[in-house]
């Protein structure tokens, strides 16, 4: 699975893109975030405030209970500030 980080989440995690191999049982957005938070202190810090974390699966906004699969592109970012 390809995981993309943007804005200050990217800064905290320390990387813009990572390839991860999903462990068994990590099959929803919520479980993915829980698991990603265990990968490093930076990940943990980035994901500590879930209320300001947005997730897109395959470039569409996703809810916490949405399924994720090995081949997905998952992007994690703060609320958007364009326009």
């Amino acid at each position: 699975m390809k995981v993309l980080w943007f804005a200050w989440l990217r800064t905290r995690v320390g990387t813009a893109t990572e390839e991860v191999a999903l462990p068994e049982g990590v099959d929803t957005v919520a479980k993915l975030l829980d698991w990603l938070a265990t990968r490093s202190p930076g990940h943990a810090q980035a994901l500590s405030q879930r209320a300001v974390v947005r997730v897109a699966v395959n470039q569409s906004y996703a809810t916490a209970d949405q399924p994720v699969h090995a081949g997905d592109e998952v992007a994690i970012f703060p609320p958007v500030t364009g326009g």
Partner: protein
Amino acid sequence: MAIRVQREDFDVGTELARLTEKRTDIGALTSFVGLVRDFGTPGGGGMTLEHYPGMTEKELVAVEREALGRWELSATLIIHRYGRLEPGERIVLCAAASPHRAAAFEACHFLIDWLKTRAPFWKLEDTAQGQKWVEARAEDETAAKRWRTGP
């Protein structure tokens, strides 16, 4: 019915003229330009706009489609820049053309309100304390909510 995501500036006159060119069914054309404001930062301010290539275009197309479904529109346009932007520079252009002016105004307002809470852009502003990620504003969420339909 066009969206563009680009680093370069755009020419508002050219873009708007293109929307109404050779058409005689358009009575009203409303446009919005968002510009970088200077908040008095020593050194001049400015910002860098990060975005999510691919998803950005998808979301802008979705915003435009939503507008076309809600109002009687003859043409729409969204252009959004990314990258380094100095104070006074244009960031975004939204335009809606319609036979009727109320539709043109509402649709154009919708385009910018909706994209502000949906299109994956993030502003990194120069401040006196260094670069700082802009936080999402509650009032943008409120503005977008105004357009929400259904229960």
